């Protein structure tokens, strides 16, 4: 089962390596990983998307929590949460046809057009990356980059210091 885990971690040298290393050490998977410092810059918020049974995810959150640099951990999947991912597609202009434009215009996008290429940033709210790529057609895409999922509780619940 797909799980989205949010982590507040000290913004110290080596802290990220400890958190990421732990997944490998304990035999857990990372589907995607996103991390950046927040407000005062002394700590970062990570979003890790992983797959595992309930027991495995419970172990992951407990083991992550044990790391000295980790301030808080929350399994967002336990409740209502908002999860998005930024996907940037680059198309050769000639291949950026009306069919593709129509598909992408259903999404929240920002477009940068040049004479040779078109770059389209898509805010993907349903994590349907695979089906989106399929509908566009893999061969029509020149380059892709994904941010990895970022998530937040949809309710009043928070993961603040």
């Amino acid at each position: 089962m797909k799980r989205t885990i949010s982590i507040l971690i000290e913004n110290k040298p080596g802290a990220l390596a400890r958190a990421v290393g732990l997944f490998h050490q304990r035999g857990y998977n990372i589907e995607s990983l996103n991390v950046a410092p927040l407000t005062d810059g002394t700590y970062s918020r990570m979003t890790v998307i992983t797959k595992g049974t309930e027991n495995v995810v419970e172990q992951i959150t407990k083991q992550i929590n044990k790391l000295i640099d980790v301030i808080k951990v929350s399994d967002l999947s336990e409740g209502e949460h908002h999860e998005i991912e930024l996907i940037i597609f680059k198309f050769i202009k000639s291949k950026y046809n009306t069919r593709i434009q129509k598909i992408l215009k259903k999404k929240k996008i920002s477009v940068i057009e040049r004479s040779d290429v078109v770059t389209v940033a898509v805010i993907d709210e349903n994590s349907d990356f695979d089906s989106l790529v399929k509908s566009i057609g893999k061969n029509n895409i020149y380059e892709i980059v994904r941010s990895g999922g970022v998530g937040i509780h949809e309710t009043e619940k928070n993961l603040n210091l």
Partner: protein
Amino acid sequence: MKYSGGELLLKALKDEGVKFIFGYPGGAALHIYDAIFRQKYVDHILVRHEQGATHAADGYSRATGKPGVVLVTSGPGATNAITGLATAFMDSIPLVVISGQVQSHLIGTDSFQETDMIGVSRPIVKHSYLVQSAEEIPSIVQEAFYIAQTGRPGPVVIDIPKDKTDPLHKYKYKKPAKPYLRSYQPKIKPHPGQIKKAAKAILSSERPVIYAGGGAIYSNAAKELSELNKILKVPVTNTLMGLGVYPAKNKLFLGMLGMHGTYQANMAMHNADLILAVGSRFDDRITNTPSLFAPNAKIVHIDVDPASISKIIKADIPIVGQVKDSLQALIKEIKRSKIKIDTDAIDIWNTQIDKWRKKHGLDHDLYQKKLKSKMIIPQVVVQELYNVTNGNAYVTSDVGQHQMFVAQYYHFNKPRRWINSGGLGTMGFGLPAALGVKLAFPKQEVVCVTGEGSIQMCIQELSTCLQYGLPIKIVNINNEALGMVRQWQDMNYGGRHSASTYQNSLPDFVKLTESYGHVGLKVTKPSNLRKTLEKAFAMKNKLVFIDVLVDPNEHVYPMLVAPNGSMKDMWLSKTKKT
């Protein structure tokens, strides 16, 4: 007064009450070694290999409860300390390992004796620090000691680039304020609601077992455990790491449980209706196949580490907290509870356990064997050792059959007396660990029980023992083979002894010991065993190595049947299964 980074380090160690540093010098650590030379509070013990330093500090820590301190240089010095770090990590032992590092500006350039110690040690430390400025050394040291000792203890590495200890740069020393980490608050009080639930479940049970492990020892909870069981009067078993936390002489003690646990301990676990796990972690050497583990038992699990709870076996009533605090709360709750334990049911349960004990208890037919055998039976060596030392020695061991024989036959009545590498299973641990224990308790008898395989993995520390005058006793249970490996080969590989014998290449241990400046004795006949042990222990000021040639065909039993076995499935001898 101003101090160099090296001097700041030594001042900080002194402020932590450090008496001994176990270490080995080298380029990147030389500024620190010079600072050691110019102070008189902390003694440095020069080992002969950095692995020995970590095990010695580890032994010191296990016996005293205080953190052990290690100092090594960069590169090979640091990597040689890795096995000892992993050993301490697996058994939750507080160590502070200080490693020299190449100068800051050389990090990442593949410079001489450079290793990324922080990276290499990451999976086997509780935490680690790379020093960024000399001024932060005192606060890092204080934090390292705090982290190593609190919560679930563990080793902490401090990697110090050489330029941060340079005597050319001096700083003021101010004792840092008490450490506070917003991301680490280890003082967890047991939840009163959970304590209530646990008390009710325990008092309502009819076939309970207390299963106590290393966590009970580290939390110094032996007194509380005995106090609890004065009320309950239920059977108690200890893990390999927990031996001594409940007195073996108590008639309610079942002995060790698990892979080579006693018949009665494993049967009691399998048939229990309630298991009270106290600072133990349901390791795979305990549970056998987890899905077949104790099918009718409700599990109450006390542990300071929430990640240990429900990791292998789902806890019905988890209690996250220090063992000592949790047991105190539980005792209080049980005393005030209106429910009283059903003493009739407990009597029936204890009677059943006595039947098991009589049926296949450990001493079963051992004495008969002793009479018949022309060779010394290894278990009898441990029994005689127990007799000669009145069961009062600090006993360290290495890993293998001899380790299990000590766990089974040296009946520990006090915590912190049995010092062995349980989690990682590190051969070479015993001798340096004994050295560390002897430094802590010079007036106590300290014995290293080892085998001819293990002892050769850190035998160089005999030289350290001479330098510092550490008259430990070494009992080498010599079966001229890697006994436990061979036992598995006998049982699972059709007796094909692949790489488990030495083909007459063993050294003469008596001469070897003598060349290190100690006394060596050899025993081959059962009739000489007791006398030789007595002779050795009479030499109070000498390190004596007793090479005991034993029956090479002896296996360790009971042994859990694996794979797909439960705790009731045991080999009781080479031919008999439960």
